[in-house]
């Protein structure tokens, strides 16, 4: 029996199987044109100007091919089989957990729970931690910049716990009003749940400061890292957050996999939220004892290939360099702001003092869906609508916006194509 290669073959280790795709983009820092060649979608859709990575990012061949290769060579169920193939599959699944730990700089891989996505991660915290520890009158503090995924779970358990949902407002610049945020903290605040980077506008939140303020009031803090994790270096220990969630598919990995990070002692105190196989120590009809985290929270056969695909995606972006990705996103965001600001009749939705990777556009007189349809005619793929942030849209007085979001494969030409398509749409509609 041949032995599988060790996990984590990228960037410098020999490829794990013949024909493994190389990371072209890594050679000279981040060269988006070279990165683009790592993503087969662009080969299959010539001329595609893909500006919707905030909804879901494209996948590099490194992820697509390695997931297929895993199914071909190493697949079996995890944590169950006595046979060697199952042990190997388990090693790779747990290896993926270690890759995520490194990616977030968590203290232990036991603090990494695989979930379906950030939405499930937040729901897990709500239904396990929230149902166990929130009392009537306790407050959960969110912000106006939240995605529905960080609003609705708290509303759902509000009925069952008696919690009060408090909302911190944005200021006139579109950033979080830190003074107003602080004013809403009190000893009743048990959890602060905030986005790291607002999906609808691109505003970066000062989560490190917010975590410190939350802790000063004895509250825990959950950070929604869906848009930040693909763009910013994230260090959960430096942020000192208690929970951090992100989705695999937005970080160039597969759909159906995501991550909940939680501090070890918090996770240890949390009751299970779903029951089934793999999360138990011993089951009798009278009583069941549960596994320690993270397995306590992974009932049933997990998304094995999803976790492994996510690890490949993280390896891929680590190989490009997270600092290089951040610099690329910042530079391209700046170019986008400059370019779009010069277009008459086009307004960028304010995103506070620091905007990253997301350009939310309002063209007065043109509905976002009409705009997006015309942009599509020019092969420019963007998201139009409320971006699952209806309360924010209401606050901004907009029915919706047209959102262009940036990824590692985008460059200035994509922004120029967007600008040209916007001008064409204006010509058509006005």
């Amino acid at each position: 029996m041949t032995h599988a290669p060790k996990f984590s073959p990228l960037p410098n280790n020999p490829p794990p199987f013949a024909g493994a795709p190389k990371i072209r983009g890594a050679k000279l820092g981040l060269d988006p044109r070279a990165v683009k060649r790592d993503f087969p979608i662009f080969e299959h859709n010539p001329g595609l100007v893909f500006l919707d990575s905030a909804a879901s990012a494209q996948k590099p061949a490194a992820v697509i091919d390695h997931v297929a290769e895993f199914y071909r060579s190493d697949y079996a169920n995890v944590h169950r089989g006595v046979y060697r193939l199952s042990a190997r599959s388990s090693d790779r699944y747990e290896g993926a957990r270690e890759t995520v730990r490194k990616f977030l700089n968590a203290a232990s891989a036991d603090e990494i729970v695989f979930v379906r996505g950030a939405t499930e991660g937040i729901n897990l915290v709500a239904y396990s931690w929230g149902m166990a520890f929130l009392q009537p009158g306790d407050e959960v503090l969110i912000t106006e910049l939240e995605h529905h995924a960080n609003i609705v779970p708290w509303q759902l358990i509000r009925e069952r716990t008696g919690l009060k949902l408090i909302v911190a407002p944005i200021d006139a610049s579109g950033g979080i009003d830190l003074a107003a945020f602080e004013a809403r903290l009190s000893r009743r605040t048990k959890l602060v749940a905030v986005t790291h980077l607002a999906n609808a506008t691109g505003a970066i939140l000062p989560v490190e400061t917010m975590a410190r303020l939350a802790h000063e009031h004895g509250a825990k803090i959950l950070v929604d890292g869906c848009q930040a994790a693909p763009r910013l270096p994230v260090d959960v220990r430096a942020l000192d957050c208690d929970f951090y969630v992100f989705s695999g598919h937005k970080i160039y990995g597969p759909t159906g996999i995501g991550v909940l990070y939680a501090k070890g002692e918090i996770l240890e105190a949390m009751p299970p939220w779903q029951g089934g196989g793999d999360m138990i120590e011993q089951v009798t009809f009278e009583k069941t004892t549960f596994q320690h985290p993270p397995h306590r929270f992974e009932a049933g056969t997990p998304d094995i290939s999803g976790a492994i695909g996510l690890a490949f995606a993280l390896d891929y972006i680590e190989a490009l360099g997270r600092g290089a990705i951040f610099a690329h996103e910042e530079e391209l965001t700046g170019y986008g702001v400059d370019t779009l600001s010069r277009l008459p009749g086009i307004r960028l939705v304010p995103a506070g003092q620091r905007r990253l990777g997301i350009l939310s556009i309002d063209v007065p007189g043109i509905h976002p869906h009409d705009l997006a349809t015309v942009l599509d005619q020019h092969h420019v793929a963007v998201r139009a609508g409320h971006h699952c942030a209806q309360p924010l849209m209401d606050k901004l007085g907009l029915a919706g916006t047209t959102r262009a979001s940036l990824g590692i494969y985008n460059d200035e030409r994509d922004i120029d194509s967007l600008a040209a398509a916007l001008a064409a749409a204006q010509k058509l509609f006005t």
Partner: protein
Amino acid sequence: MDARELYQDIILDHGRHPRNFRELPQATNLAHGHNPLCGDRVTVYLELDGDRIKDLSFDGRGCAISTASASLMTEVLKGKTLAEADALFKGFHAEVTGKAVPRLPDALAEDMERLAPLEGVRAYPTRVKCATLAWHAFEAALKNGAAGTVATVKTE
């Protein structure tokens, strides 16, 4: 398909200057339509006289397609019987969803012709709901009477 084939002049015109865009104080029937995908909202008002549509109007906010479709609908349906309106809805729905168009009475041929500029949405499955929102609200208004409950537009 070129954007101009979808956004024909008649669509752009009705999108910018919708006809019968007002509340109808004497409405006997009304319904609110809501497309949760984009947040668009429309209210359709009807004044029925027996089984004839004496007057109808709409208001709300929407994209060019949904506004133009609502506007053209009000023009086409005014004065029709409920049976004729039903036939036109079925015919229009089939046109925009690319299904087989039922045989319509000859008397309605001209009305179908007036709705033809909206056929372009067939090539844009995500936009079909924009074109049918007001029609679904119209249908709901017939059922509702003056109660005006929300009819959330269905996925096509």
